[in-house]
């Protein structure tokens, strides 16, 4: 951590000394990077890779790569990841060229379909071979998109994890909690897409803003790498007087953090705060205090930066990694609902199947979630306690009603010979 003596005026354009490439893969990825066409992301080269010429044609990316063979007959991968993968292997040199020259490659893809799931792992490998740091930013499909897609997505995710420096994965299913039931399908994808951009922006800020307390890309990678874990992230913003409190509330109720559960369960958390010039230490402190209270067991990496453009807003990005072997994905999909939604709609122009940020919860909803999460953490605590095996119930005799004498995890009220397993007969 280095602290610069004076506040650097954060100019997104001037800050990245390293060359960044954002590569969108597949329909979802391509349409997503289209939305990244803002000043903030001007420092990076956007590359679109797809097997579908149509989506590329409408893309605003600086570089477009159309992967095509005769076998496809212009039909794309048809949702088959294997086909996407073999195609990518075939065009490996093209992919490598696309990544060349970059210091950091950010791969954005919606997993589950043919192009995203198939190409992304190969692309990650190609980028790695060019010597760039690779961070993959992927989404998992909705449950209703069916078994096959989630299996493909899982497989692909594992492959990406194996080669990329870091993977941040967002199960789209969690977005359901964010969005009103009656939202039309189109709106749903649009909204979730918009939210994802917010999240990306948070990560972007992490990487490019000159920080007062800098988070290096290495920190980010170290957090998400080699943990065989699912990282969840959230990006929230608030403004005004009570902004630090609002931030904390939003984080705790955030659906992408499982309403704070992700924080409690995580074993590594990265927090980045970006505020206007009026950002105070007390605010940083308050936010950090609450976050660390929620994740007692986690290693916390913290960064802070000042951006004059934010005025009186405070934005916080949280990436939480937990060491869980199996990500919580489709146990049993409810029937094969592969209709227009699954096969094409999911990958269509609005097919951003991912989701982050600030849910606009009503006050009661938030309070409800807050109390829920509080109750949960209280209930989560006894989990740590060593349980007594049902077969070895030893009466505590005269100490039944007194406070147990626990020394280094042993209940000394239980007879020593019982604990040491000395047979008496």
């Amino acid at each position: 951590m280095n602290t610069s003596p004076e506040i650097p005026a954060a100019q997104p354009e001037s800050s990245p000394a390293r060359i960044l490439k954002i590569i969108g893969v597949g329909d979802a990825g391509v349409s997503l990077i289209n939305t990244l066409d803002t000043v903030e992301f001007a420092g990076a080269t956007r590359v679109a890779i797809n097997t579908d010429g149509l989506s590329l044609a409408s893309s605003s990316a600086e570089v477009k790569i159309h992967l095509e063979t005769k076998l496809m007959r212009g039909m794309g991968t048809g949702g088959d990841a294997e086909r996407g993968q073999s195609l990518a292997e075939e065009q490996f040199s093209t992919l490598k060229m696309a990544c060349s020259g970059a210091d950091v490659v950010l791969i954005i893809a919606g997993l589950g379909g043919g192009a995203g799931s198939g190409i992304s792992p190969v692309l990650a490998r190609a980028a790695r071979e060019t010597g760039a740091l690779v961070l993959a930013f992927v989404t998992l499909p909705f449950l209703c998109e069916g078994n096959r897609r989630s299996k493909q997505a899982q497989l692909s995710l594992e492959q990406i994890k194996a080669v990329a420096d870091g993977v941040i994965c967002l199960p789209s299913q969690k977005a359901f909690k964010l969005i009103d039931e009656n939202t039309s399908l189109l709106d749903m994808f649009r909204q979730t897409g918009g939210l994802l951009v917010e999240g990306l922006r948070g990560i972007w800020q992490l990487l490019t803003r000159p920080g007062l307390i800098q988070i290096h890309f290495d920190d980010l990678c170290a957090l998400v790498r080699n943990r065989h874990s699912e990282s969840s992230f959230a990006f929230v913003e608030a403004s005004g007087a009570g902004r630090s409190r609002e931030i904390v509330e939003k984080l705790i109720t955030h659906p992408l953090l499982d309403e704070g559960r992700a924080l409690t369960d995580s074993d590594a958390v990265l927090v980045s705060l970006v505020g206007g010039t009026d950002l105070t230490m007390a605010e940083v402190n308050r936010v950090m205090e609450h976050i660390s209270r929620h994740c007692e067991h986690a290693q916390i990496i913290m960064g802070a930066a000042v951006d004059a453009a934010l005025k009186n807003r405070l934005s916080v990005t949280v990436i939480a990694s937990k060491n869980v072997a199996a990500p919580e994905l489709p146990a049993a999909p409810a029937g094969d609902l592969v209709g227009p939604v699954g096969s094409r709609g999911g990958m269509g122009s609005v097919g951003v199947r991912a989701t982050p940020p600030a849910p606009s919860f009503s006050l009661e909803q938030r309070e409800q979630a807050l109390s829920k999460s509080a109750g949960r953490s209280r209930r989560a605590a006894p989990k740590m306690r060593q349980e007594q095996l049902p077969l070895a119930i030893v009466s505590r005799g005269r100490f039944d009603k007194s406070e147990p004498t626990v020394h280094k995890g042993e209940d000394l009220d239980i007879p020593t010979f019982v604990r040491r397993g000395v047979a008496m007969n």
Partner: protein
Amino acid sequence: MFDESSIIVGLEIGTSKICAVVGEQGADGALNIVGLGQARSRGVRKGEIADAALVEEDVRNAIVEAEKMADVEIRSVYLGVSGAHIRGFNNRGVHPVVSADREISRDDVGDVVKNAKAINLPAENTIIHAVRQHFLVDGHGGITDPVGMLGARIEVDMHVVHGNTNRLQNAIRLVKGLQLKVEEIVSSGLASSLALLTSDQKELGALVIDIGAGTTDYVVYADGVIKHTGVLAVGGDHVSNDLGHGLKVPLSRAEKLKLEHGSALVDEAMTGRTLTLTNEHGLPLKTVNVEHLQRIMSLRLEELFQIIAADLESAGLVDYLRAGVFLCGGGARVPQVAALAERILQMPVSIGQTNSISGLKSALDQPEFVTAIGLAKFGSLKSRRADGKTSLVQGIKSTLHGFLRR
């Protein structure tokens, strides 16, 4: 008959018995024990009050008995406290000497002691004792009185004993409810060590282990000062409970077996020996294996000493204990307990003798009464200091006046 101020009473509310010791402080300052009252304790578990009504009755009985024996009226007591919530640790306070001539004044000493006591205790805890170990002036250690020395920085090492405020107040309130004034509360381990150790032994380094019924308190002295204290909520009750569980006999019977046939080491001669338990009519009820009985006891006591040994090891104090280990409390009565402790602690172990007091000696020199005698001794040292005659307990400083008056 007696001038009231020269009467000092130590009251110990123990897990198995409640004991009040009445001491008379002579003109030369020596403490003479003139009375003792005790009652079986029924409402205490692991050194802490579980049933206040029963305890109140028992305390009253003990006090009345002590009053009768000493022929005095008891108005105030020094109260012994114990329990797993009591902890000790060492803390260092620093204070810069600001006077122009760099001479350390009494105020500087007061400030540095205050700094050493300003520690981060949990909100619900109170300091019971803060004992000065030694001063350092400009980093040079081993100074007992720095007043008048020259230096830029003065530091002090203190041993702080603290406990849960509410649980301490439970005992204080109960005693106050009997119209007795609590002069001060004293941790049981510290009181025992005061009664047992001579100043030579404190200088050499000694460990006092007070094995009570509910708790085991231990105190380490080295270089004349308290280095370490600990309370373990394991004691004679645990031994009885283990026996009751292992031999499948009721607790009262287990207690009796412990007293009659117990041993800290398994006696080889007892191998295969059995005892026949009889009911009140003399009919045989059950047979128990003596070897098992002793093995169960031995394992429990062995574990107790092992925990203490591990604690001393981690505190790095094992090499300081040149005067050895002194046992007291009811647990010290267990046959062979010194031999067992010697085997585990790897140093000479003896049963402590309360040498430093006079009075009803033969009746009092019992390991069970050590704590109560130590409490009276604490009081006598305290009042002697207040008289300004000597300053033997200079290091022991009360922090509880305000606390007691709450």
